């Protein structure tokens, strides 16, 4: 593969291409698209955690102003039960197919009216009665319904003799760590507009991957994929919550089918919480054994998390445990407990965010018990190859992240004993965490066309969540074609372009850049075609087997008021090894955003359920706390030189790694400040308050 070096858009800090359109309000989000003759749908959600719909009194709202009709399980189009997601068939998608209520917040009807207000008024007025059944929404390790998780990834590991190594260890940490249900909480609520053009179903939908969503929608509605087209222009964040074919799109398509006109369904904030996706609660046990000098003998990580019986899902909590540290014995297992809850799905560093909280908290506890600098403990257990797989790392710069982060943070002067620093009434502490997140690429298709005016149309069904994918792909296409960025016309966000991975799993840019780069190589090749399409499926299969991960080290300083339990983060610093950085300005923004997500996970975010009804009681941004500006301190984030051999442009992906490790670094800093371990997130003030 020949690459142009003389143009040089890759690696240059550039502001977002669409920045001006966004700050002036010109950028259109899914709910902004003007569509003629539009009707509006409003959801009705189940208010019981388990049971059956006894009756929906449609007649009582049919004559309300503007109401066109109600879709429920008695008249909804029949959906294909084979439709699913990355993990297999997904009963979460089969809305309005029967009277069963699998979780509170399940959509049970859609009211369609001439205006959004009329639809909402009728939806609120619609009388629904239920036959309630006993429910179970409480997760705990050892739950009788527990069973092994799917092994599609983060499969169980068992090398060496964990029990013998633990028995031979001078020091053993054996603790449980818990994380609550959390919500993706993108700023833009999910919105979809669907209509028929002849025999083709068209939709504008806020999602993270238009091709996959269109494919799922086609399956659901028994249509060949070419008769479904899903587009999205700008997206107000996803954080995993827009990865699946959302209820807004399924219900809009149903309503467009039933009423024969375009229908828009925009979720309320509460509906985003209750009916889209959530991170499952986890209950994790970690056992680590080490010699007196801190060399690890064994790591045992058992993670239990909740799913819904409707769909499989993998919260890969133990991936890091198989990646970060050398140990002669490593055992990991994922246990799922099916409960009466909204099906969990990927959210902000799925698996790694809760998993790293457990592992890196336990490592800090080990450092304490061994009497070792937590930084030195990590350095002392640096592996040469994949600790479980034995495969070489494609590249691994965790040590560089740790050392450079420690230097900038001033770690060397830290007194490792807890509760030694004060500032007025506050206890001050610092903590760190090492992290990884697996990287790679998925098959994608790109088409490049040389236009008569000297520009190049570069088309790929990518999605820009607001992270800057447009800007990054424009730079990559320009360099791959050896032209200036002004000659690139990028087309994304349209399923009709062809198969492409979505914006998720830290694999968007790597997957899309690969296809664009190969298509550009064809355009510039000896045959000089006017247009070239490349599907990377075959190329990806040829990639050498390696341990492929992004790495980082996160350092935190907190102030704790022991009289009130208030924890405030004073400093955060992250050093990242993410392969080659395509655009340092946007990459820095993205990892800082991730670190704020991690801070929010550490101190604030928690889906609270009513203990009696099993229903969420804080499904809004006043009750579900996300870090406010005032919670976010000065954050420093930077990158160590890194590369990813074998992947075009050396991309590793920067999407999730920012989230990982921050919660553990903060929890470790809270211990250092107070001398008390925080093993359950969020670190609420009532958990810290000293009476």
């Amino acid at each position: 593969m020949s690459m142009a070096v003389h143009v040089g858009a890759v690696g240059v800090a550039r502001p977002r291409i669409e920045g001006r359109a966004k700050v002036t309000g010109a950028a259109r989000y899914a709910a902004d698209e003007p569509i003629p003759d539009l009707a509006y749908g409003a959801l009705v959600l189940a208010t019981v955690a388990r049971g059956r719909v006894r009756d929906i009194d449609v007649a009582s709202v049919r004559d309300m102003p503007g109401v066109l009709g109600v879709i429920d399980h008695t008249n909804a189009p029949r959906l294909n039960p084979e439709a699913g997601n990355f993990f297999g068939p997904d009963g979460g998608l089969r809305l309005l197919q029967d009277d069963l209520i699998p979780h509170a917040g399940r959509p049970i009807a859609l009211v369609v009216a001439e205006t959004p207000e009329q639809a909402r008024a009728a939806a609120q007025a619609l009388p629904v009665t239920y036959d309630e059944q006993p429910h179970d929404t409480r997760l705990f390790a050892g739950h009788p319904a527990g069973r092994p998780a799917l092994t599609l990834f983060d499969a169980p590991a068992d090398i060496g003799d964990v029990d013998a190594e633990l028995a031979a260890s001078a020091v053993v940490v054996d603790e449980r760590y818990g994380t609550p249900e959390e919500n993706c909480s993108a700023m833009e609520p999910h919105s979809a507009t669907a209509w028929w053009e002849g025999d083709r179903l068209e939709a504008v939908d806020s999602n993270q991957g238009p091709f996959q969503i269109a494919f799922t929608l086609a399956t659901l509605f028994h249509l060949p994929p070419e008769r479904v087209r899903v587009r999205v222009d700008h997206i107000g964040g996803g954080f995993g919550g827009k990865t699946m074919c959302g209820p807004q799109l399924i219900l809009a398509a149903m309503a467009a089918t039933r009423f024969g006109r375009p229908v828009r369904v925009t979720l309320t904030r509460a509906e985003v919480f209750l009916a889209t996706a959530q991170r499952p609660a986890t209950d994790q046990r970690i056992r680590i054994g080490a010699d007196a000098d801190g060399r690890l003998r064994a790591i045992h990580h058992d993670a239990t998390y909740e799913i819904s019986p409707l769909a499989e899902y993998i919260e890969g909590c133990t991936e890091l445990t198989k990646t970060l540290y050398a140990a002669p014995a490593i055992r990991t297992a994922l246990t799922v407990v099916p409960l009466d809850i909204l099906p969990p799905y990927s959210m902000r560093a799925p698996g790694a965010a809760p998993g790293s909280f457990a592992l890196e908290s336990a490592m800090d506890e080990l450092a304490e018990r061994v009497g070792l600098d937590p930084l030195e403990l990590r350095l002392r257990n640096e592996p040469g190859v994949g600790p479980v797989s034995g495969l070489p790392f494609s590249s691994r710069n965790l040590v560089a992240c740790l050392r450079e982060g420690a230097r900038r943070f001033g770690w060397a002067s830290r007194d490792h004993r807890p509760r030694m620093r004060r500032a007025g009434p506050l206890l001050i502490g610092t903590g760190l965490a090492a992290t990884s997140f697996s990287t790679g690429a998925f098959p994608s298709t790109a088409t490049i066309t040389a236009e008569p005016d000297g520009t190049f149309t570069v088309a790929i069904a990518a999605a820009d969540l607001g992270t800057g994918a447009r800007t990054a792909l424009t730079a990559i296409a320009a360099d791959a074609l050896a032209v200036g960025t002004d000659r690139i016309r990028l087309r994304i966000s349209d399923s009709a372009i062809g198969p492409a991975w979505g914006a998720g799993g830290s694999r968007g840019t790597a997957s899309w850049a690969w296809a664009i780069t190969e298509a550009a190589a064809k355009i510039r090749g000896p045959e000089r075609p006017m247009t070239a399409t490349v599907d990377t499926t075959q190329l990806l299969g040829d990639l050498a087997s390696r341990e492929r991960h992004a790495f980082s080290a996160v350092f935190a300083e907190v102030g704790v008021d022991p009289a009130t339990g208030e924890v405030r983060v004073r400093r955060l610093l992250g050093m990242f090894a993410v392969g080659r950085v395509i655009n340092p300005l946007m990459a820095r923004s993205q990892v800082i955003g991730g670190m704020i997500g991690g801070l929010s996970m550490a101190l604030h975010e928690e889906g609270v359920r009513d203990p009696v009804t099993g229903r969420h009681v804080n499904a809004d941004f006043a009750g579900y706390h996300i870090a406010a500006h005032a919670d976010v301190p000065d954050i420093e984030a930077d990158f160590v030189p890194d590369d990813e051999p074998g992947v075009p442009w050396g991309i590793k992906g920067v999407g999730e790694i920012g989230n990982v490790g921050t919660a553990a670094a903060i929890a470790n800093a809270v211990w250092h400040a107070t001398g008390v371990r925080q093993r359950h997130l969020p670190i609420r003030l009532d958990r810290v308050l000293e009476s």
Partner: protein
Amino acid sequence: MKEFAYRRVTEIRDALAAGHGGARYLGGGTNLVDLMKCGVETPTQLVDVRFLPLGEIRETPDGGLAIGATTTNSDLAAHPEVRRRYPALSQAVLAGASGQLRNMATVGGNLMQRTRCAYFADPSQACNKRDPGSGCAAIRGAHHNHAVLGWSPSCVATHASDMAVALAAFDAVVRYETLDGGAEIPLERFYPPVGDTPERETELPAGALITEVVLPGSAVAPRSRYRKVRERASYAFATVSVAAHLEVSRGTVRSVRIALGGVASRPWRARAAESFLLDGPATADRFRAAAETELAAAAPLPGNGYKVPLARNLIAAVLADLAEPY
């Protein structure tokens, strides 16, 4: 949201004439409109009072301040005389909500805001305050941030206002107009005890319009403080807050006022703690003992017991802070 009529008034008498039946007065709408969206409030008419001539803050003959009911929270907090004479009031207002909300919210609306109990805001849940006789889902439900003082088996919700806590500490008086004429109520009596009528939230007669809040000059308290503990640094309701004023002379407490937020259905004036401290020594032990005296009546639920030591620690810390030499 139910359909409703909207009327903007510029004369108090027009507001009073319209403010009956299913009508509600609209200030900044930062709470009322939210509750209309979720179906808790269903007014037939909104009477927009923001353009009434009630937006001034003026001096009173006794050296106090009269704050017009449509003064925005932002203007109240920024007013130089409020900041000089009643710093805890300015601090309390600034500790509430967000900048955007404070720009809209009004003093009258702030006093009339409803509880943020999640069960109250969800018409599918049992709530005696919203639907008398339906029960209280919070008492056996998620009540992490609910009341520990003065609640009843009917309702365990807290009052959400920060401003009202400072007003309670400063002996503020609420003035209002009705079609039958004007009257006033001390803020401390403005919110009745919960009892078995949690739906009755204020002592205002039906259709009454709050016109101003008067801060007596005798209560001028340049040495006062508002400290709010919350689950994030901004845009969160108090878990516990304290508005306090303290004057110490030669080691003896000469004047003290303490009000608590986040612990009861109304701003909680800590009279027992004040009596305990008055004319006694101003020491850390006494501050803590005074707090414990006040909190002896606390009755926490299984999920909010932390509020009792938190309130004790917070009262002691704020008083100790105020007792420091100038």
